[in-house]
């Protein structure tokens, strides 16, 4: 019997840009009586970058965490590729969620492991059995896919470097490669560049925009710098006290809108 080795088609190739992949409606969440999200709804489409802007505590990160399942919303609906997540349980939910990857402010690589091993770890969700216990047993196909992901983010030459020895910008690019190795179609980035210097921040944001436009991913990034959003995002969602203040084309993010989003002491005013 012969085994056919067919190339694994990237999800992205089989889909149309602009197709909505993540639909969120009426998300509500409160912590200790304080409402953090008050009916937040938005849609992420393949091939575009959405920037989430807003002052500290406006609910940007909580929104992403609810989508990721790191927080449980009190109400609202989250649809991934048309499937309502709240209807799923256990492995079905995990499988659905695995099409969403997260990139963190604190990067969260394992410093002792190499860049390549960290990227391979993105595939753990679909890799079962004893082979998934140690990087020593990772199959060659996985390592090659991880190398391709590292090459995509411009880090192939550092594959065998310990993650702890990389600079912040390099490490964040490796973390993005880990998300690619997860074969995610949605990339949620929670303040991905807040810990980086301006140049590294620029590079990482440019990379995320490139992946959205060329690999047809849906990218949502929580940002603290409106100018980064202006340069790299296609659309913007502005939050004030857990409500969406603005949602639309990046051109709408003018000086007055920025001032509105970042008015200090709104609660006291």
């Amino acid at each position: 019997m012969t085994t056919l080795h067919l190339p694994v088609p990237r999800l992205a190739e089989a889909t149309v840009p602009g197709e909505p992949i993540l639909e969120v409606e009426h998300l509500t969440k409160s912590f200790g009586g304080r409402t953090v999200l008050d009916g937040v709804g938005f849609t992420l489409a393949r091939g575009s970058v959405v920037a989430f802007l807003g002052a500290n505590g406006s609910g940007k990160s909580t929104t992403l965490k609810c989508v990721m399942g790191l927080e449980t919303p009190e109400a609202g609906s989250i649809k991934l590729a048309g499937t309502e997540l709240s209807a799923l349980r256990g492995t079905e939910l995990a499988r659905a969620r695995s099409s969403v990857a997260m990139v963190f402010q604190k990067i969260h690589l394992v410093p002792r492991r190499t860049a390549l091993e960290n990227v391979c770890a993105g595939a753990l969700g679909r890799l079962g059995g004893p082979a998934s216990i140690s990087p020593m047993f990772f199959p060659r196909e996985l390592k090659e896919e991880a190398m391709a992901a590292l090459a995509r983010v411009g880090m192939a030459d550092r594959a065998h470097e310990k993650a702890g020895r990389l600079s912040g910008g390099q490490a964040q690019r490796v973390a993005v490669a880990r998300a690619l190795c997860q074969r995610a179609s949605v990339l949620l980035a929670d303040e991905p560049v807040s810990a980086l210097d301006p140049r590294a921040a620029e590079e990482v944001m440019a990379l995320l925009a490139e992946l959205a436009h060329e690999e047809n991913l849906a990218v949502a990034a929580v940002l603290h710098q409106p100018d980064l959003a202006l340069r790299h995002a296609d659309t913007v969602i502005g939050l004030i006290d857990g409500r969406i203040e603005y949602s639309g084309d990046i051109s709408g993010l003018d000086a007055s809108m920025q001032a509105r989003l970042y008015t200090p002491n709104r609660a006291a005013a």
Partner: protein
Amino acid sequence: MSAPVARLSVPKLPNAGWRITSILTAIAVFVVLHVFALRGTDFEVAALVTGAEGMASFLADAFPPDLDWEGVLAPALKATTVTLWIGLLGTTLSIPSALLLAVFASRTTTPHRAVYQLSRAVLSFFRAVPDIVFALIFVTAVGLGPFAGVLALICHNTGVMGKLWAESMEEADNGPQQALSTAGASRLQQVTHAALPMVLGQFVGLLLYRFDVNVRSSLVLGLVGAGGIGLLINQSIKSFRFDAMATQIIVVLVLIILVDQLSSFIRRKLEV
């Protein structure tokens, strides 16, 4: 003339009176506890002074140490090697059980709240029973000799090392574990690919520290018949061969210094 230095009166600390009262209370409690402790242990400096003569004659008997190769030094070296092996095996053979219990007894990696509580209880038990008690139990089971010592150390060290490892896992940054969890990794995968690699350095450091302690413990275990140099020291004391005992203690001292130096050397290398 330089410009006058600006001064501003320092506002009073809130609750200043309460702070002083609580410090004084803490000191009083500390003193009272020590009074009870001194009484409870018959602590008497006078007894030490009057007994100094006995100590002097003991030391006089011990020096010069008996360095006879055939009768004393060679057996001492051989028995010290056994002590080292007891310490080594007692440490390494407790790694699997300590690791398993540590993973179960760390809030960040435990599969279930009940497993966490149970593992903590098991670890507490192994830690609370002194290694010397384990040694006495195993001597009755497998007879006098180093094997009983190894078994005793495995039990006690599982309790101590498992607890230390669990604590270091709880203190470690669990971000990478969270990242893998959002990527759909199973709990076991999160442990092997994030939680454990994050603490590997601390784990090895604690392991070396425990090796250091266990070599010293295995010495005491010899006193209750669990083999090694402790057994020889015990025999020397019982037969009033204090000069032989002095030689044996010197050999032990050299071993302990060597183990201590080696483990701190490796720990230093690991930190870099």
